[in-house]
């Protein structure tokens, strides 16, 4: 990938927050897979604003997305799973993220720990709880379900054994066209098996080596993207019949610019301090084409990326049938 100096457009100050803080993923007019990892919590400027200052990002959709997650979990409990050896890692993830949020949002949140007794206050939910690290019954639905009610990110925990990463726990309600229940227990290379190009280009093997070398406490991030029809968070394999068919009709839909969203995942890779497990967070951001088009540089870059993207990648991302319509619309503005 190439580095371009990004300058924020002076008119951008007038744009709504959802656009100014959107993690626009394209640096140029073409896109290829790469090992695009960088240190976490570095502010990343875009042509419309900036993103990325906080590990856990909270935005205007906070309560809505958490309500949506609760519904998904009620319908389908297979979206959460913890293999027994991952209990320490789950508690480690919970304490690490709550204390990070308390530091980033001191006006609304606080976290105190005395030994294993913790007190958490979340003013956005009028919530105050006390729990004991290591005691699963000290939180109503256990520590992972609880963490899933506090952050918008999907949560995945990987154990490190025999120089390999194993996906052994997680809570994933907003998957972009994959199945968490299917992937539980798989290793890093197996998880990435369906992705074109990455094996040939040694991206997954390099990425795994990099992740295995991370030391406890280190935090990195990357972005990934696809497209989604409607503001739909749950596009998992399990609900494919509900959202898959839209892909064939959207190109001819006059409402395409409002309905079609760029879906960007800000993914964090965190080696947890006490368990040594790898925490993989996926925070999904959706922005309709109509909003993308309000930033001239985004409109052009995305228009060109969609037009140029090789077929195998467009096919894998599930956008092959409408990417030309989307590109044409963006470039005709």
């Amino acid at each position, binding site marked *: 990938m190439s580095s371009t100096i990004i300058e924020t457009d002076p008119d951008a100050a007038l744009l709504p927050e959802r656009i100014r803080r959107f993690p626009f993923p394209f640096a140029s007019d073409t896109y290829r897979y790469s090992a*695009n990892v960088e240190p976490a919590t570095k502010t990343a400027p875009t042509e419309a604003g900036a993103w990325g200052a906080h590990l856990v990002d909270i935005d205007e959709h906070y309560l809505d997305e958490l309500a949506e997650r609760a519904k998904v979990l009620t319908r389908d409990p297979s979206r959460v799973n913890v293999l027994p050896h991952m209990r320490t890692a789950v508690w480690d993830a919970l304490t690490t993220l709550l204390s990070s949020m308390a530091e980033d949002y001191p006006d609304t949140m606080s976290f105190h720990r005395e030994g294993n007794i913790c007190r958490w206050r979340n003013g956005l939910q009028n919530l105050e709880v006390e729990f004991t690290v290591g005691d699963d019954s000290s939180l109503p639905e256990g520590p992972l379900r609880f963490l899933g009610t506090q952050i918008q990110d999907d949560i995945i925990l990987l154990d490190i054994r025999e120089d390999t990463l194993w996906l052994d726990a997680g809570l994933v309600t907003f998957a972009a066209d994959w199945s968490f229940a299917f992937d539980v227990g798989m290793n890093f290379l197996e998880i990435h098996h369906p992705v074109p190009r990455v094996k040939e280009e040694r991206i997954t093997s390099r990425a795994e080596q990099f992740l295995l070398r991370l030391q406890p406490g280190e935090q990195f991030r990357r972005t990934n993207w696809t497209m989604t029809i409607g503001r739909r968070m749950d596009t998992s394999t399990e609900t494919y019949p509900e959202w898959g068919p839209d892909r064939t009709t959207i190109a001819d839909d006059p409402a395409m610019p409002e309905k079609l969203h760029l879906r960007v995942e800000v993914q964090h890779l965190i080696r947890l301090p006490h368990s040594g497990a790898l925490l993989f967070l996926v925070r999904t951001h959706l922005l309709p084409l109509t909003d993308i088009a309000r930033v001239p540089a985004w409109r052009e870059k995305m228009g060109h990326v969609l037009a140029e993207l090789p077929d195998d990648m467009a096919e894998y991302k599930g956008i092959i049938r409408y990417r030309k319509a989307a590109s044409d619309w963006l470039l005709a503005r």
Partner: protein
Amino acid sequence: MTAIALQPRVHPAVEGGLQLEVTNVSRETESIVSITMAAPEGGRLPSYVPGSHLVVQWGNGVNAYSLTGSGNAPSEYSISVLRVGEGAGGSLAMHRLCVGDRVYVARPRSAFAPASTATHHLLVAAGIGITPVLSHARAAVERDSTATMIYVHRPDAGAHVAEARELLGPGLIALVECTDRGSFQNVLAEALITQPVGTHLYVCGPVVFMDAVLEEARGHGWSSARLHSEAFGAAELDAGEPFTVHLARSGVRLEVPAGVSLLETLETAGQSIPNMCRKGICGECVLPVLRGAPQHRDLYLSEQEKAANNTMMSCVSRSNDPELELDL
């Protein structure tokens, strides 16, 4: 005496780490002292993985010592140091530390972690090798898993014996102390054939001791996936040797000191080099090399590209030659 107090120069290996104050020094045996450190302003220190080590600066040098706590939300770090008479001087300097002295340490690093899937942990230590193994035993007790410890030490010269005995209970279910080689051979052989299925073995002590234990275990059919031995800092990049770069286009010569990357050196000199991960994986910071053999330490270039020696990743790679010439 406060000879070590506030080093004027922070060693690169502990840069970005913590400055701690010695809060307790206690003699374990004739040649081993335990040193406890805490944040001068109090409060919690970063948690660590059981079996982690702490890189501590003494004078101008650094040494790694195993942490002896469980690593769960600690407010202090404890290490134990064996005085090595003819050593590089680190152990002597550490033995001179007093309460109130300030030391620089790096964040704890993990290279000897417990396996989360183990059904039981067999911990084997000799001498000062007790330190990371004690950390494992404490973690087993806290995490409701189980461990057996075999500890070889000289008669009346076992560090941390009392603490290990105190841990005995539902977590540490057995502690066998051996003070002579013959009894250890028997205890180990017996232990290797009586552990529950799914037990992992952890050994720490002198290299010959570790090799002997591992070989014996393999001989009894233990797979290497279930065998763990302490290898300090295997996963970390060392500081490297200093070298010079000659920038062909501008004619500038720059010195790259040990512990400072080529990328940082160029940035300090006002060059702007694209970069992203600063860890040798993303491929952004590639530089064209005109002369000299880079010491490739990245994950990005292929073996062929590395062998060609005409590009290098400036964030992690260094030089095998005293000078490199770059097309910059």
